[in-house]
């Protein structure tokens, strides 16, 4: 059981190339918004897996780590940096041949910003409400207790029978257009997660049993479908007028960055220096640096040369290339002593983009 999460963890560890700990991989999968996991995704080319198994519990993952060490899938050095072994690689390769990571999965984009959750939870509750309204039943237990979601649905819900009928036809038309364009398995998973009148949605475990897949894999299929749907709507809003309502509006989407990093960003725009921001906010300088590194990874075209000279960047890239590493300490040993860790972290954010 739980083999799929084994494979995903190994896949990430493989990409980390012995330069991160086991828990680095775990934090990426649950979508921890720390300076570290925000960088690790893009840095090691595993951004699509950010936050795609949010329900993994730490104690459980500890257990997985022990098993992997016992089975010889991974080895850890004295700093707990984790490297995959040949056995480990075989295991996840084998899994990937049978159940590849869904192509449209884009955790770094849709899970990080909360867009996938925003969309899905609103759609699910709206769908349930519409289904009951269409069957003239107005006393049902909502599938989502969250007040923000409920208020949103109430505000957008069609008032009368005519409006409800229009919405039903339009939503059905748009959803089935989209679902026909994807494979049948994902269409099944997506629709079986919905609840409505005389239909209670199924859990990932139950779907896994029906289709003979691992529950985690079913969850990945679902999330990849949500990501793809949002993407499709974004590209053709005129063809998905009803579904477009459920997409997070841009003004709510400040969450490309963590809240705290957002505040730092505003201060930067107002021309404050790092130490001034730290003083203003009563935070450590290193925290503000974390925010800036986060921006370097999350915001396209963020100008890192304001903080690190182009010459220094070049020196850092060369060292990283020569040593074939993205570990800060190793790079630091190879470069001029006056270049600090902050400069290295910023430069690494641009390493693949040139």
């Amino acid at each position, binding site marked *: 059981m739980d083999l799929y999460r084994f494979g995903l963890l190994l896949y990430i560890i493989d990409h980390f190339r012995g330069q991160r700990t086991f828990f680095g991989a775990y934090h990426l999968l649950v979508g921890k918004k720390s300076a570290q996991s925000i960088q690790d995704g893009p840095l090691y080319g595993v951004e699509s897996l950010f936050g795609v198994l949010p329900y993994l519990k730490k104690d459980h993952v500890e257990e997985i780590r022990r098993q992997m060490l016992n089975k010889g899938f991974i080895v850890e050095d004295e700093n707990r940096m984790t490297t995959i072994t040949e056995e480990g690689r075989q295991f996840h390769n084998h899994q990937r041949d049978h159940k590849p990571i869904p192509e449209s999965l884009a955790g770094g984009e849709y899970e990080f910003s909360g867009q996938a959750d925003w969309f899905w939870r609103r759609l699910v509750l709206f769908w349930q409400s519409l289904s009951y309204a269409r069957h003239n039943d107005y006393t049902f237990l*909502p599938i989502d*207790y969250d007040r923000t979601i409920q208020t949103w649905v109430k505000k957008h819900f069609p008032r009368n029978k005519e409006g409800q009928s229009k919405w039903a036809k339009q939503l059905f038309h748009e959803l089935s257009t989209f679902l026909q364009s994807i494979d049948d398995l994902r269409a099944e998973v997506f*629709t079986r997660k919905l609840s409505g009148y005389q239909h209670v949605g199924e859990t990932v475990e139950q779907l896994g049993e029906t289709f003979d897949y691992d529950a985690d894999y079913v969850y990945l299929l679902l999330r990849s479908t949500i990501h793809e749907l949002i993407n499709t709507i974004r590209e053709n809003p005129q063809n998905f007028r009803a579904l477009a309502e459920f997409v997070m509006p841009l003004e709510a989407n400040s969450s490309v960055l963590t809240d705290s990093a957002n505040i730092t960003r505003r201060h930067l725009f107002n021309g404050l220096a790092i130490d001034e921001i730290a003083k203003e906010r009563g935070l450590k300088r290193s925290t503000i640096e974390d925010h800036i590194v986060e921006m370097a990874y999350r915001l396209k075209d963020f100008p890192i040369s304001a903080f690190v000279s182009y010459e220094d960047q070049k020196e850092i890239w060369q060292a990283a290339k020569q040593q074939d590493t993205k570990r800060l300490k190793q790079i630091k040993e190879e470069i001029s002593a006056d270049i600090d860790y902050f400069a290295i972290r910023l430069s690494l954010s641009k390493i693949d983009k040139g």
Partner: protein
Amino acid sequence: METFLKQKFGFSNFRPGQREIIADVLSRKNVLAVLPTGSGKTLCYQLPSHVFKGITVVVSPLLSLMDDQVQQMRSQGDKGVIAINSYLSNDEKRNILRTLPQYRMIFVSPEMLQLSNVLEALQRVTVSLFVVDEAHCISQWGHEFRTDYLRLGDIRKALHYPPCLALTATATKDIQQDIIEQLGLHEVHRHIYSVDRENIAYIQKHFHSHADKLEYLTRHLSEFPAPGIIYTSSRQLAEHIVYEAAKNQSYKIAYYHAGMLQEDRRLIQHQFLEGSLDFVVATNAFGMGVHKSDIRSVIHVQLPTRMEAYVQEVGRAGRDGKQSYAFLLHADGDDILPLQLIQREYPDQGIIDSVFATMKQQVVVTRSDLEQRCYEMGLEETQQKLLLFYLEKSHIIQNGRVDNVNPELLQQVKNELRQRETYRFQLFRQFEESLLSHKCLRAQILSYFEENLTKRLDPCCSRCGDIVIEREVYDKQNKKNRSKTWNQRLKAMLALGEEEEG
């Protein structure tokens, strides 16, 4: 009163105790009510809240339970009900507090009442009734002591002593007295009812090994009356049971635990309510707020850590009054897990020593420093709250500062915590003994709560005689036909005809 009951709630009769309690509440008396689980405690304040002009405040310690209750009332069309708890965002909370007078009944967690803006908002409105649900949490010798409950007396004072209704399903006489004192209730009218649920029959089975027990359960599950809840204490075991039992296709079974998506946990709840699941294997979090009246079996595969929890869990069976069953499957060595669970509630002695060391060196000065330090040392939240409670009680922490670091006092705190832990171990042993003795199970449970069995019931328990289990044939119709294509399924949900093609 009966007319009102029929009109508002659609019931034609009160259940035992309800009428008397409601009458006292309506005449603005302070009431302590001990009513067994599943006997309709909610109505005791829900009905008066419709009569009173002001607001009914309900303090409830369990967030998920609170949410379930509020959602159920709201879905039945009662929109005057709202919950204030940590699930709300700050914006939502502000909004609710601003518009407080438009609500009739407010559920609130004890933690929220500690916030000044919440208390101030409540002071601006008229509170006609102050309900303390699960009132046993107020007693430090109660089974679920919650330090946040201790300030409820002060809160009542700040609200100018509104009439109070303290409710619990399980409280020994000592704890009843503690509740009254802590809440500062004068002229209390007590309504104490037996914990006994006459329509539940108890069946105990002993096995030599854990493995035998599980094999019996998974093989014979189809002979247990459904719908049913199977309680375990561990997630692995819950998953194992479902995995084994699912091989039998004659019923539907699923597990429910904290390692699942929130979304999926709710789906399990809905499936169980709707009747498409026969059994749910759950850790104790399941079933609290779920108003499912036709649960026929509650099956314990592992013992909880105390009698009160056991009685509450069993009480989820047969709320409709029909014959239901409590099964207790027990094997040698079953005490290990509950003992571990108790141990985990108390901070480790070594950690206490290192926390105290930092206090002696005056590294930590304020209460919040200390909280931070406890967190860093790996104390869980409940452990940390308990430790801080004892430090405050012995005045080592005063006015939010670590003040009086006296080695003797520290030792005393350490001893008190140890005593408490030992006391809990003893309680567990007592509970275990009473269930595993050869005497009547019902009488044993009652005697734990200082009651005597006065009636001879049939069926009573497996010690009093063989029990013939009445079981309805599984309703195959419930097992939804899922063979529809996704397209047809979407249409069915939205009541669209065949002509509407995608």
